[in-house]
């Protein structure tokens, strides 16, 4: 980090502190927590784009898979649902995987020709109906178990912190699958493929109620930090809060957010230490060499395809971890709220604005863009009030303009992205 980078970070810190003084410390801490998570997402994307030049626009899918990781690890198991159809669901999924493997095997083993095409097709078609025949009754049985409050298999009931690596693993698994099929393709085909995968992940989360309750949402996930209400009821905490001159309500909520911030900072520091080590190692130089000239790197004996797959999996796993952390922070998994503009393209803005190819740049971008994403709305509202003060109260145009302030965020993000790309294409903290 140079002096200039440190100044940039100091400016962001000052903006957040100013938010604390002007708005409230609760708001400032909320920005910090989501900023930390955004920074981790940006780190993951930076690995793929900055180190290796892979254009992944399916970040939303990996983030959502991380969220699913939290549910399957830490939600309490629903014994009744497991009894109703747990094993059968697993059997069904195993059949599904087996069918696909079988088809791929036929394709690779049989000689080219009609026999191969027909046997692959027959495997897939017959396999699909067998899969549905085993799978569907099990799903119905599970979803019938107390649908208002459960209706899903539940998780393993393990500590929630464990779910962060699990989220990363889930995302890594998905990335392996996608990478195997799509990485050989040209950059814009990979973009469309990842965009599609992300939509499919969200569609699965929304529709497969047996897995994570679909749009009924899983709420009340366990937390790694104390609950506000417990703190307010604890005499010693109230006493200490009083010593600071704060009322127990605010103090407890700030304390909980601080706990999260500490946890997230630890994760971020570990990840940035690892990625800095990796980027400055022979491996990191190799990745950049591949990015800058694939043919030359291949001529030097580097396995470009394998390295691309590797970095794609690593970057997606980091996004998965960030997704798990976010779901933990929210305490709930709500598949309906995952939107590509917010979870894919906003992270891209962070990486580009921060500086692709530089880990500190990605972190800075995460904080800056998240800060603006949150603050554009109140600032925009002020601006609009200023612009419309001369209009008559109750005029339709005035009401419309004031109502539409919420959509100024997208506009602002687009302008920020375009301005940075035009005038400082290497970002705030460029690669060195």
């Amino acid at each position: 980090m140079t002096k200039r980078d440190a100044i940039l970070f100091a400016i962001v810190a000052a903006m957040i502190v100013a938010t604390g003084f002007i708005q409230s410390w609760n708001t400032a801490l909320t920005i910090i927590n989501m900023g930390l998570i955004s920074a981790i997402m940006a780190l993951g994307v930076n690995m793929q784009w900055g180190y290796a030049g892979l254009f992944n626009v399916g970040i939303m899918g990996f983030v959502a898979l991380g969220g699913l990781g939290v549910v399957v690890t830490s939600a309490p198991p629903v014994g009744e649902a497991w009894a109703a159809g747990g094993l059968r669901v697993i059997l069904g999924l195993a059949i599904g995987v087996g069918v696909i493997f079988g088809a791929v095997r036929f394709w690779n083993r049989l000689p080219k020709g009609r026999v191969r095409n027909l046997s692959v097709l027959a495997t897939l078609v017959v396999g699909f109906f067998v899969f549905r025949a085993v799978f569907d009754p099990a799903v119905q049985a599970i979803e019938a178990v107390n649908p208002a409050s459960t209706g899903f298999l539940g998780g393993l009931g393990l500590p929630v912190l464990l779910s962060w690596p699990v989220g990363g693993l889930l995302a890594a698994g998905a990335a392996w699958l996608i990478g195997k099929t799509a990485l050989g393709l040209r950059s814009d085909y990979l973009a469309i493929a990842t965009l599609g995968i992300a939509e499919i992940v969200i569609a699965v989360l929304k529709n497969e109620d047996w897995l994570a309750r679909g749009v009924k949402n899983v709420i009340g996930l366990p937390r790694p930090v104390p609950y506000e209400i417990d703190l307010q009821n604890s005499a010693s905490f109230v006493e200490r809060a009083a010593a600071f001159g704060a009322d127990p309500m605010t103090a407890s909520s700030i304390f909980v957010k601080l706990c999260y911030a500490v946890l997230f900072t630890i994760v971020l520091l570990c990840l940035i230490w690892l990625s800095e080590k990796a980027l400055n190692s022979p491996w990191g130089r190799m990745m950049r060499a591949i990015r800058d000239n694939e043919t030359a790197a291949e001529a030097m004996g580097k396995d470009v395809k394998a390295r691309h797959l590797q970095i794609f999996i690593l970057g997606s796993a980091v996004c998965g971890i960030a997704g798990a952390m976010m779901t933990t922070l929210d305490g709930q998994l709500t598949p309906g709220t995952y939107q590509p503009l917010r979870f894919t393209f906003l992270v891209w803005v962070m990486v580009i604005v921060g500086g692709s190819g530089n880990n500190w740049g990605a972190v800075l971008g995460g904080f800056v863009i998240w800060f603006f994403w949150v603050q554009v709305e109140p600032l925009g509202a002020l601006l609009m009030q200023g612009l419309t003060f001369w209009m008559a109260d109750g005029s339709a145009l005035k009401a419309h303009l004031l109502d539409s302030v919420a959509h100024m965020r997208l506009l602002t993000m687009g302008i920020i992205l375009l301005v940075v790309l035009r005038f400082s294409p290497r970002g705030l903290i460029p690669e060195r």
Partner: protein
Amino acid sequence: MEFLNALVALSNFVLIPATAYGAQLALGALGVTLIYGILRFSNFAHGDTMAFGTMVTVLVTWAFQNAGISLGVLPTALLALPFGIAATALLVLGTDKLVYQFYRKQKAAPVILVIVSIGVMFIMNGLVRFIIGPDDQRFADGERFIITAREFKTMTGLSEGLALRTTQGITIVTAVVVVALLFWFLNHSRTGKSMRAFSDNEDLALLSGINPDRVVAITWIIVAALATIAGVLYGLDKSFKPFTYFQLLLPIFASAIVGGLGNPLGAIVGGFVIAFSEVTVTYAWKKVLTYLAPEGLEPNSLVQLLSTDYKFAVSFVILIIVLLFRPTGLFRGKSV
């Protein structure tokens, strides 16, 4: 009789909706493919360009409706369409001047242009939501049906009804006219020929005196027209919601890639391939099969291969299959 009923049910629920949807996708994919062929990048802002054009058309339609102007049985939106196209053309030409031109002069890598188009996408998306809001808007008026299910039943005496909505009819007719005009333009007019030359070999085209700025400007105008028409037809057929248009990006790109990026004929075929597979895979076949199956063998489940929410999965799977087995698409598109 049973067979005829099955055929009618099939047309009513699969063939007609899929044809209309396929025509809308084909028009969208044509825009994507033209940009790819001439400007050489995948335009992620295309869905939002469609949304913008549709939004202007919706606003003008409302103004006409308030002024009491209408087209009788046809939707007023058709009258407002030229205004939508003009506004969209101005918008994309402005965007090109302000944004894309700089990178074109620099000969930036295609992927940089894709990222730039993501920025444009944000702005257009924000603009549309800012002006009309994120909610559903209905703007179809005029006669709702060409044939209603009941009329069809009394006419033919079949127990299955066949409904043909005006919007579906308009979609198909408009698509045919637009595509015919476009192909005539590309194949026979001087400008169209210069566009094709530019797309095939930029250096040779420049050498033979083709003005690149003119080719680019005309491409944008055509794309604006195609995007607006596709968007308005989709909006008339279903409804207008900015987010849905953004999501249309995936099937549109799938169509363009399946057909072969840069190949206009491929875009049309791709659109119908994607639309028909989406509809057939997510349709519950029970009704049709009940007519066809012998007595006592009628299916008792819905016979739906996938739930309708997985329609993205269908376009995606087809996309992957085509890319794995025929990487340049069915019609040999270009690969930059």
